[in-house]
C-alpha cells in the first residue's frame, strides 16, 4: 500500500469523516491497493449489524430508512446508510436521489450516508456494497442500513449479504405483493407494509399471510408483518424493537453465515481470476485476436476459454 492509502487508513481509524469518505471512493472504484486496504480493515469488522431494506420503487424505503436510523440514533447507536440506485445502462452515469428523503437524519451526529450506483458490473455491486459496509463497520458504526430497489438480481444479491432483511410492501400497486419479485420475498425476515394510511393496507397484510401459509412448513420461523406510516413515523419504534429482538436471536456462526462467507469468497476469487485474464488480454490484444480467430473459423470460444485458464487448471493438477 502506498503512502496515500496509508494516510487515509490512519485518518479513517482516528475518526476522520473525509478520510472515511475518500477511502470508500477508492475501494468502490477498485483503485490499485484496494484489496490490501480491505485486508487491513477486515480485522476491525464484524461488530456492526447489517440491515437490508428493499422493496419496489417508491415504496417509501428512503423515508423508512431515515426514520429507522433516527430511532437507532436516539437509542445511542451510530448508523451508516448505503443507498443504492441503478446506473444508467446507456451513459454509465446515475441520478442518486435517496438523500432527498434523508435530510433530517443524514446530518445527525453519528450518521454517515453514502449513495452508491450499481455501476453495471455484473454481480459487482454485491461485493462493493459489502466492502463499503465493512469500511463503515470498521469506522465504528453499530448499524449499517442498506437500501436497494427490489427489482434486479444485483439488488437481491446485496440484500443476501446482510444480517436481516426488511421487505417493504405498499397497498395500491394493483397486483399488491406481486410487484415484488420472487426471490426477494423468500429472503424477508420482516415484511413492512408501509403507507398504511392508504386504503388496502390490511389486504396487503392478508396477502402476505396467505403467501407465507402456502410457502412454508409449519415449524419454520415465520417472518413478522408490521404496518408503518413512514412519513408520520408511525409504527417505526415497534419495527425497530422487533428488528433488534430478531437480530439477537440470529447467531453469527450459523449455517447462513457460513454460506455467506462462502459466496463472498467464491465471488472474490472469480473476480480476481477474470480480472487477471482481462488485464493480460488488454495488454496483449489477446481478446481481439481470440475473437477474430473465432470469426474466421480457426477456433471456438470453448477451446479459447480452456486455453486461457489452462495455467490455473495445470496448477491444481500438479497438487
Amino acid at each position: 500500500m502506498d503512502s496515500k492509502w496509508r494516510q487515509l487508513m490512519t485518518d479513517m481509524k482516528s475518526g476522520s469523516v473525509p478520510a472515511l469518505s475518500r477511502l470508500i471512493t477508492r475501494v468502490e472504484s477498485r483503485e490499485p491497493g484496494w484489496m490490501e486496504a480491505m485486508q487491513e480493515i477486515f480485522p476491525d469488522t464484524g461488530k456492526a449489524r447489517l440491515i437490508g431494506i428493499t422493496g419496489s420503487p417508491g415504496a417509501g424505503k428512503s423515508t423508512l430508512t431515515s426514520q429507522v436510523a433516527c430511532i437507532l440514533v436516539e437509542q445511542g447507536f451510530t448508523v451508516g446508510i448505503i443507498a443504492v440506485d441503478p446506473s444508467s445502462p446507456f451513459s454509465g452515469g446515475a441520478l442518486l436521489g435517496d438523500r432527498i428523503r434523508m435530510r433530517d437524519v443524514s446530518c445527525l451526529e453519528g450518521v454517515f450516508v453514502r449513495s452508491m450506483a450499481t455501476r453495471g458490473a455484473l454481480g459487482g455491486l454485491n461485493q462493493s456494497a459489502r466492502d463499503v459496509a465493512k469500511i463503515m463497520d470498521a469506522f465504528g458504526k453499530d448499524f449499517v442500513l442498506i437500501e436497494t430497489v427490489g427489482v434486479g438480481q444485483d439488488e437481491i444479491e446485496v440484500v443476501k449479504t446482510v444480517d436481516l432483511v426488511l421487505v417493504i410492501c405498499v397497498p395500491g400497486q394493483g397486483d399488491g405483493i406481486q410487484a415484488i419479485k420472487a426471490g426477494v420475498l423468500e429472503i424477508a425476515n420482516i415484511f413492512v407494509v408501509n403507507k398504511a394510511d392508504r386504503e388496502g393496507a390490511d389486504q396487503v397484510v392478508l396477502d402476505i399471510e396467505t403467501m407465507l401459509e402456502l410457502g412454508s412448513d409449519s415449524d419454520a420461523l415465520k417472518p413478522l408483518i408490521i404496518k408503518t406510516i413512514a412519513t408520520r413515523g408511525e409504527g417505526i419504534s415497534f419495527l425497530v424493537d422487533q428488528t433488534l429482538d430478531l437480530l439477537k436471536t440470529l447467531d453469527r456462526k450459523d449455517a447462513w453465515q457460513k454460506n455467506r462467507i462462502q459466496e463472498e469468497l467464491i465471488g472474490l476469487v472469480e473476480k480476481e481470476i477474470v480480472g487477471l485474464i482481462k488485464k493480460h488480454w488488454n495488454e496483449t490484444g489477446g481478446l481481439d485476436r481470440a475473437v477474430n480467430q473465432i470469426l474466421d473459423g480457426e477456433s471456438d470460444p470453448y477451446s479459447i476459454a480452456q486455453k486461457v485458464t489452462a495455467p490455473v487448471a495445470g496448477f491444481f493438477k500438479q497438487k
Partner: protein
Amino acid sequence: MDRTIRVLVSKVGLDGHDRGAKVIAYGLRDIGFEVIFLGIGHTPEQIVITALQEDVDAVGLFVLSGAHLPLTKRVIEGLKEKGGEDIAILVGGAIPDEDKTQLKEMGVLEVLTSGIRIDQVAQLINDHAFTRASHKRV
C-alpha cells in the same frame, strides 16, 4: 483517470419554476457522472456535510431567492473548515450579471447561466476532478 466523477446538485432557498437544477442533474448523468440530487430545503451546513459524505468532486448550488452571495459563502467556508476545500462550487439560478465576478472571486468555478452547454459544464468539472485526484487528494 477512470474514477467516476460525482457531483452534488442542490437547490437552496425557495423553490421556483426554475428547472435549471434538474436539467444540469440529468445532463450530467447522461454524460456519465454520478449525480447526488438533494432537491430543495437543505441548509448550507447540510450541503457541506453531504458533499463530504458523498466525496463529490463538485457541488452545484441553485439559488433563486437572491441570497446566492451569502449562501455560497457559507458553503465555501464550511467546506474549507471541514476539509473539503478541494471540492469545486458551481452556482446557478437567478444570478444577476453584476454578482458573477464576485462569486468567481469567492472561488466559484463557474456561474451557470441559462445559455451554458452541459458538455462545457461537464468539461469544467472533469478538469477540476483531474487536478483534485492527482494533486490535492490525500
